[in-house]
Each structure stands twice: as structure tokens, then as C-alpha cells.
């Protein structure tokens, strides 16, 4: 088990992602962040806080549970459904940035795109991930990445955040 990102690395990466999202979307009033529970939702809150500071206005942030849209429900034990909360400004016509902790197969993002389609029709959907570990199984890419971590398929990447785990770090574990 090795530490791939330490607490200061994570905080630097999130601030950089905040700047990059604002740079890529000049109409900053139109941006809505949606974190994918559980850790993606916490990352979204943090990114929204720093983006709000930089942009000088509140960036709407919510969370989007994608459990009901997963294509692997039958292959795993029952997953509990997590909360979804969409900001009052909605997602219609907005620049939606999906935020997750690890981008891996791309299936979570595919499910998120389906889930979004049931809520509304954003102008664009972008993806930000703290870690991109490769091994994509679908034609999906991240627009904003904290850190590209080349991994073998046998390894697992574990993101820990203070809000849940009491510590900020990204670990690579050998299975």
C-alpha cells in the first residue's frame, strides 16, 4: 500500500481543478456542480467553495445518485440508494460538471449521464475526477483531472477524505 496523494497534494489538485473549470466556462453564472455520492459529493462541496471564492459569486452545488442507473446491479450485492439533491436553479441549459473521486471504467459516468437525462437537459456535461486511474471500458474521458495515476488492473485506488475517513489521502493497494 503506497500513498499516491497526500493531503496537501489533494488540496492543491482541487484548487487547480476549480481554476480550470472556471477557465473552461467563461459564463461562470451558468456552472452547476454535481458530486456523485459519497466521496464525489464531498469533493464537489470543496470545489464549489473554492470556485465561489475565486469567481466572487455562489456556485450551485448538488449531488446526483446514480445507483438506479448502474448496469452492474445484478452482479453485486444490494447497493443502498444515496440521496440526490439538485440545486434550485436546476440543470436545464446549464454547464453541468460531474465530480467523482476516481475515474476508472467510465460506467459510473455513463450511469450519471442517464440519471441527468431524467432531471433535465444541460447545455454541456463535463467530468472532473480527483484521480484518473485508466482502464476505461467506455468512450468516456475526464475534462478535469486532479492526478493521472497509472495503475495495474489488479491494484485498487482508495480515496479517503476527512469528512468521512478523518484523513485526506489517496492510497494504491495491491490486491
Amino acid at each position, binding site marked *: 500500500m503506497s500513498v499516491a496523494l497526500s493531503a496537501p497534494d489533494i488540496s492543491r489538485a482541487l484548487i487547480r481543478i476549480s481554476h480550470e473549470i472556471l477557465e473552461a466556462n467563461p459564463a461562470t453564472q451558468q456552472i452547476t456542480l454535481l458530486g456523485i455520492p459519497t466521496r464525489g459529493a464531498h469533493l464537489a462541496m470543496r470545489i464549489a467553495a473554492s470556485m465561489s471564492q475565486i469567481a466572487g459569486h455562489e456556485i450551485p452545488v448538488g449531488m446526483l*445518485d446514480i445507483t*438506479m*442507473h448502474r448496469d452492474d*446491479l*445484478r*452482479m*453485486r*450485492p*444490494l*447497493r*443502498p*440508494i*444515496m*440521496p*440526490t439533491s439538485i440545486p434550485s436553479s436546476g440543470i436545464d441549459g446549464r454547464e453541468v460538471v460531474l465530480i467523482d473521486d476516481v475515474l476508472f471504467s467510465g460506467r459510473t459516468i455513463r450511469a450519471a449521464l*442517464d440519471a441527468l*437525462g*431524467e*432531471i*433535465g437537459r444541460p447545455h454541456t456535461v463535463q467530468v472532473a475526477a480527483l484521480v484518473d486511474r485508466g482502464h476505461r471500458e467506455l468512450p468516456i474521458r475526464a475534462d478535469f483531472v486532479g492526478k493521472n495515476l497509472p495503475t495495474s488492473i489488479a491494484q485498487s485506488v482508495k480515496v479517503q477524505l476527512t469528512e468521512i475517513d478523518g484523513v485526506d489521502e489517496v492510497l494504491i493497494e495491491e490486491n
Partner: protein
Amino acid sequence: MRHLLSISDLSKAQAILILDTAVELARVSDGAVKKLPTLRGRTIVNLFAEDSTRTRISFEAAAKRLSADVINFSAKGSSVSKGESLKDTALTLQAMGADAVVIRHGASGAPQRLADSEWMLGSVINAGDGTHEHPSQALLDAFTIRKHLGKGAPDLVGVRVAIVGDVLHSRVARSNVLLLTLLGASVTLVAPPTLLPVGVESWPVKISYDLDSVIGTVDVVMMLRVQQERMSDLFFPNAREYSRYFGLNADRLKLMSPDSIVMHPGPMNRGLEIAAEVADSARSVIVEQVANGVSVRMAILYVLLAGQPLEAGSK
């Protein structure tokens, strides 16, 4: 969990999981697109050997909102009315590839028989069996109570519920006593002695024969339907006397504590156990119970069917 046959099979954590799942699924019913792809390609059979409006359409709506295919099967107009046995019906359903059977049956224990048999491999969901249990109704009642009186807690500790009326014939009362006490609520049964089952003193409840002394002390008054179709003997002298002593009328409504709610599993006998003005009053959550029923049944289908299939024979 593979089947939902009785509340007594549920742990507190499982019951809360179903209620929490229902909270999230309730959003679907409010959304623009009332449909999720979760159970696409799965077949759910509604096997109703006894009349039902609410429960059948509620399960049907729940299954359809999760994109499952629904086959409705009622005893009237099917081979059951020609005398086909439960076994042969089950074998037919298995041959058609039913992933789950929602069964309502006049015989207590019919869902258990179906689940324990080798006749079919799918999940069995009890939608009311005889005078035994009606677990999905109890779950939707607990969901409704928690929404109004739960104060954000996952369970119902501290909530006081009176269940009033025909407890003897009521599967709703049996399931509710089990579930509400499992979730920490205190339950008082109010009924004439003739409408209480044998052995009720061993249930984890208080018993009263006097509605007026109980009504001001509880947060929830759950009225039960007087089940005339199951009454072959005389259980009370006449309907007017029952209504006077055990009916919920406008005068009794005034005795209820503030914030308390009136529930009824339906179908109501307006004017017998509940006065029309009470059923339509602001305290009544009876229509909301029906709406919550769809969310709760979606949660039941999700919890039983969405995960990895369990090995045949496991519970």
C-alpha cells in the same frame, strides 16, 4: 433478503433500509420522468386471488416505474376459478420466467407455501394473506408515520400509535404491531373484546376497550376496516353501536392531541369505523398513504430484486 413474507422476518436495519430507500424513490414520483431503468427486463407477476384495488395498482405502478414488465393475474377470469391449485399456478408462472410474484391470497400462509416450495425460484412478496400479514401495508404506514412524526430519526422511538377496530380479522394490524414495535413505537390496540384475537395479551402492546380514554394520548390513530366479509358470527350488536363506541367521528377528532394524524389502510366504510368528515379532515393522511405506498413498494422491489441473485433456497 429474497422474499417478503412477514414483518417478523425483517431486522430493524432491514426495515429502515426499505424506508430509507423509499425516501429516495419518492423523488422519482415527483420528477418529470416517473421511470427508472433499474428492473428493465425483469418480470413481476401480480397474483391476486382476492379482491384488491389499492395494493394491486400500487404494486403495478411501482414495478412499472422501475421498468419491470408486469403481468396481472386475478383469480376471477383465470384458471384458478376453474379449480387450478396454487402449485399448478406457480409452475405456470415459473415456466413463464417470473422473477417475482406479488401474491394476495385468502388463505393465511399461502405466500409462505409458495416461497418454501420448489415450484418457483423467484422472489415472493406477500400482498396480504388471509388474516395473517400484510407487510407492504405496514411498511408504508411506518413510512407515513415517520415522515410526519419521525423528527428526522431513522426509527419511531417515542411515537405512540393506537390501532382501533377489527384487530381479529386484520392482517394490517398484525403486520403493523410487529413493525411499529420493531421500530420502537408504542402501540395500543383499541377494540371490543370480541374483535381481539386469542393470545393478544402476549403481543407487545397495550390493550384498551375504551377509545375515548386513549385518543388524546396518542400521536397516530390508525382505524381498521370492519371486515364484514370475514365475519360469519355476530361480533357486535349492530353497526350503530360499533360506530358509537369505536368509530372515529368529529367529536373524537377534537380530543386528539395537536399534530396527531389519522390513518386508515382502506377501503373505508365511511360512517361505520370512520366518519366522512374525519376521513376528509386536515388530520387525515389517508390519501397520502396511497401515494407513499407506491414509493415503499418500489423500495421493496428494489431491495428484493436489484442486487445479486441469491442462491435458490436461501432466504
